[in-house]
């Protein structure tokens, strides 16, 4: 019953979304960022709350066709050429090679094409396949170098897999590799974290993301480790400081709350920030295709229903998948602009977010040296960035909604 209701809601949303999309079609193809969701995984990790599907090798090819079908339907929204394409998951590199190859070759061209990969899936063949498909950036889910912690996370890869994957990608001439890490893992000590940071630096990735482990309600993980995670909460403060300190010392730019890019002077002037993710943080429109994918275009946000079979079915019928949509008021757009913009290390233009700001709070936070204004822009001080969640919440103008 519930699914049915959701489906119906989704269908209505499709009509609404479609109308908006058709309007957009007529005007232009202004969207410069494309996200493609590949839900397949060999195994669902305990802490994961993404839309994933385990195994289902028989469906990979059909799914890729469905994604391309949806993309075709929305093509009119996209700019040519695109600025970025990001293939995320799931584990995109777990996709059947032929299906993955078909996808990569069919995707529109973009200046930055990133694919997420799990270390154990990276083989010389895969690296070649990616390179041939135009991929110029790989984001590896390393998470940790400690075997014990990796098994707590239920990751399949071991520490050596990460190193080997990086080497393999380097051999295939990838010069923009990002590594994802998680800290605050149950059982992790400060020295274990130091060791992870050290090992990560040895691999000299162009980019790193360091995430505090978020135990989301309803995941298996929260169920098993709730108490230990609560105990870790206090230590987490020190962990975050440690990560920021070590990485900035090593020449990485802390350009977003959880993201670090090798600074351009260490890398021949290249800007190694994730252009795709910068698109989100700067409030650009983006199209997301695939099961569960979210798009934000022209003040409308929609999310494809997270059901794989129904997604493929709709595509076979030449229809858009069931969607839930959320119209964004100008005010909401501005609030998001503030929330996202403050995650960055560059000032946010005050005039862009003026009405979303609680001016009393701004004055108070400036006095507390958590926020500073530079010219016509506003940004968080280094201490403010460590408290970015609370500072942003305070800075947001109060709204009843």
């Amino acid at each position, binding site marked *: 019953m519930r699914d049915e209701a959701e489906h119906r809601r989704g269908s209505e949303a499709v009509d609404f979304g479609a109308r908006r999309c058709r309007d957009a079609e007529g005007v232009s193809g202004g969207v410069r960022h494309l996200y493609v969701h590949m839900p397949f995984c060999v195994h669902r990790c305990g802490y994961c709350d993404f839309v994933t599907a385990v195994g289902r090798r028989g469906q990979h090819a059909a799914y890729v066709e469905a994604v391309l079908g949806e993309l075709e339907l929305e093509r009119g929204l996209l700019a040519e050429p695109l600025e970025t394409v990001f293939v995320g998951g799931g584990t995109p590199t777990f996709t059947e090679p032929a299906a993955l190859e078909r996808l990569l070759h069919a995707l529109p061209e973009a200046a930055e094409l990133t694919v997420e990969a799990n270390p154990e899936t990276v083989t010389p063949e895969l690296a070649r396949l990616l390179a041939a498909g135009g991929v110029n950036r790989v984001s590896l889910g390393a998470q940790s170098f400690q075997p014990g912690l990796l098994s707590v996370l239920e990751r399949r890869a071991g520490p050596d897999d990460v190193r080997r994957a990086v080497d393999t990608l380097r051999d295939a001439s990838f010069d923009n590799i990002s590594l994802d890490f998680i800290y605050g893992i149950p059982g992790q000590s400060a020295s274990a974290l130091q060791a992870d940071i050290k090992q990560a630096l040895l691999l000299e990735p162009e980019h790193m993301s360091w995430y505090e482990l978020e135990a989301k309600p309803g995941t298996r993980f929260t169920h098993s480790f709730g108490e230990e995670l609560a105990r870790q909460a206090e230590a987490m403060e020190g962990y975050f400081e440690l990560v920021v300190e070590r990485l900035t010392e090593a020449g990485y730019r802390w350009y977003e*709350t959880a993201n670090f890019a090798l600074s351009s002077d260490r890398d021949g002037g290249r800007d190694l920030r994730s252009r795709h993710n910068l698109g989100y943080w700067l409030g650009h429109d983006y199209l997301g295709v695939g099961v569960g994918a979210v798009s934000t275009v022209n003040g409308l946000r929609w999310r494809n229903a997270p059901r794989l079979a129904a997604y493929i079915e709709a595509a076979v019928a030449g229809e858009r998948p069931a969607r839930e949509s959320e119209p964004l008021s100008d005010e909401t757009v501005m609030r998001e602009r503030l929330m996202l913009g403050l995650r960055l290390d560059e000032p946010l233009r005050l005039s862009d977010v003026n009405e979303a700001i609680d001016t009393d709070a701004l004055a108070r936070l400036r006095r507390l040296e958590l926020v500073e204004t530079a010219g016509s822009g506003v940004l968080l001080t280094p201490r403010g960035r460590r408290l970015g*969640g609370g500072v942003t919440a305070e800075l947001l103008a109060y709204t009843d909604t």
Partner: protein
Amino acid sequence: MDQANIRNFSIIAHIDHGKSTLADRILELTDTVTGREMREQLLDSMELERERGITIKAQAVRVAWKGHQLNLIDTPGHVDFTYEVSRSLQACEGALLVVDASQGSQAQTLANAYLAIEANLEIVPAVNKIDLPQSRPDEVATEIAELVGEAAERVQRISAKTGEGVADALDAIVERVPAPAGDPDAPPRALIFDSSYDQYRGVVAFVRVVDGTFTKGEALRAMAAGTQFEAEELGFLSPAMVSTPTLSAGEVGYLVTGLKDVSTLRVGDTLTSRRNPAGEPLPGYKDVKPMVFAGLFPTDGDQYPELRDALEKLKLNDAALFYEPETSQALGFGFRCGFLGLLHMEIVRERLEREFDLDLLVTAPTVAYRVQTRTGDEIEVHNPAEMPRELERVEEPYVRASIIVPKEYVGPVMELSNERRGRFDHMEYLSEDRVLLVYDLPLGEIVLDYYDQLKSRTKGYAGFDYDFAGFREGALVRVDVLIAGEPVDALSLISHRDSAYTRGRALVDRLREEIPRQMFDVAVQAAIGSRVIARETIKARRKDVLAKCYGGDITRKRKLLEKQKAGKKRMKQVGAVEVPQEAFLAVLNLEGKK
């Protein structure tokens, strides 16, 4: 009716010793109310009274018994209403002293029995609940006989529940209680022993006519207050109102005044005729003053107008209730209210919450202090936040407390009373193992935690009662609580110098636990004047970030932050510090219930 055939009496009993049940039996036995009409415990008309087993407002019921008119005057059953009890007793010539045959006399029974003896009433003692298997009627009869100086065989043995012995008790009342002895031909005088507000008829006074006769339509005057009105209707309760043309010497009844405010017609005042006025009022009028004060704040600030209306309505029926607007930086808009005592406070609070559906935050109760300022002014302080930090001298109210305990608890009671600055007066054995201890204690200590402590240190066995015993000078200081250097008015307290450190420390510790870490270090201090007596620091948070935020998360993360912002909105801002309302609640609770 001829005064010789009138008997006016009240029933004195401890909570749960069966007063209301006995009143019900008397109404049945005298055919005042038929069994069908009988509603259990008819005299206690308020819902709250029935539930708590206490009688808040006195009323009077007239019954006929073997050619006599008996007026049963109900008395409020608690220490906070001592003055009302004394006025009710003043309206009687006798009292039926009822004691539970299994529990024996209690502190409250004693206090009220002494009031009755002081008022020269004829005491008819009775042991109740003789139907219960665990009752010890003979033992308890001996105990109360000694107490009132009677022979044990003159103690009535009754069961209010089954009706056994009740007729004999009524006979004993007719036989032993003297008839009223006022002058039927003198200018009329009547004692007001209770009043209530009827929304259609205004203030209704309950009176005992002492001299002369009151007639319907007569122009009357309250002698102490000077209030003038007409007797719109006269009558008695049976138990419904029965109108009569006159009320004459010795009779008890009601008088409809048409007045709009109970405070213009106070209990204890004397009514007389304007055409034929009495020269002297009846003795003993006292303007009762609230002794215990607390701030009442709506938890939801939007309920302030509702709280104001509710207090206005309660005040119509409760002349002793005092209130004035109070603004607290921590708690917003509310009222500083004055009560006769802790029970009165509890009753008002419960009625506000229950009958008016309000959600209240009640600050720690405090007492009335008399302060002489440095400039020589005398002021009365009801709120710690108004206590001058520099002053010449302070006086605080004292009570004479009677505590009855099994003898093995004498030690703990003495220890507690000494800790709470009590002054031992005397001690006596009521029976072989029950002891009465009499102490003078500061009321401020009682409202703080004395009673709770007494109960816990005697495993609930202690009976406790008190009466006001005047003001005495004390070494009292104002303790302020500062959060990030800002004094928080709602948390100021007045304490004896010797316990100021302990109380300040407890507050500071509790606040450190309750105030969430902020984005900067927060000092929490307790201070006497500029001298800090306790200090804690709430260390700043070092991290508070949303780890990830990409295309798929934006809506959820935005909502999370908006919720967080809304949460901040509900916090009370003390300087730059956000303090959740719960923190204040927890701290105030600690002060009230330590």
